């Protein structure tokens, strides 16, 4: 919002962070969070708030989700929202791979096509981020 940065702040800034790289880490945490949340959602006793709070995997998922949000905030500080927000879709790639490894979910041509498309989309956005 406020593009004006005073000189004191510029000197405090660490050597150029890479926002796309930060969001990359954010998606790794987000995927782990989603696997936990899915496990929790499958075992949810009832839909109410109390049912969610007592659900341990679900709460663990939220904690990781919080951590990944933190990384997203740090990335957004330096990067463009329109560029970084779609990169979050990398989460689907990790979730698909993790589901295959952990839950032995099947991998089929549709999923592989989707993964390839998402990764190439992120690569295109990453190129745009460099200028």
């Amino acid at each position, binding site marked *: 919002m406020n593009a004006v940065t005073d000189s004191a702040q510029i000197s405090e800034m660490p050597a150029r962070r890479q926002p796309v790289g930060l969001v990359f880490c954010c998606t790794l945490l987000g995927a782990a969070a989603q696997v936990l949340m899915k496990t929790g959602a499958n075992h949810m006793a009832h839909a109410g708030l109390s049912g969610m709070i007592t659900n341990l995997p679900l709460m663990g998922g939220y904690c990781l989700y919080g951590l990944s949000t933190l990384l997203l905030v740090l990335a957004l500080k330096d990067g463009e929202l329109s560029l970084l927000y779609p990169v979050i879709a990398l989460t689907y790639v990790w979730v698909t791979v993790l589901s295959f490894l952990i839950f032995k979910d099947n991998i089929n041509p549709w999923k592989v096509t*989707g993964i390839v498309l998402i990764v190439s989309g992120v690569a295109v956005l990453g190129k745009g981020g460099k200028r």
Partner: protein
Amino acid sequence: MKTPVSHMLLVLLAAFIGSFGGVFLKSGAAALRSGILYLVIARDPPYFNWRLASGVAMFLLSSYFFVLGIRPPGELSVLYPMVSLGYIFTLFWSRIFFKEPLTSLKFAGLFLIVAGVFFVGLGSK
């Protein structure tokens, strides 16, 4: 198709709220003091970073609706493409609220990602 419309609406609502969460996080991040210890403290008075707090609250609300939406009998093949609509909303909010340029590179990347999420959903039957 056995995914109830109510589940679709829940996931759409989650995507919509989530896209606004991104907007608030971005504007909150701009008001951040440098240093991780100052994460909730804004640079200018009043020091509580309400934008960042709102963004986090919206993400929580968004994932609450998301979890309700993907419960059985919700099918991921139908629901995942709806989540990626959130990325398209965000593109427009970025333009409106932050005057970010909408380059053809961004459209191309976004198109590939939305198509990719669609295919991942298609394979998740």
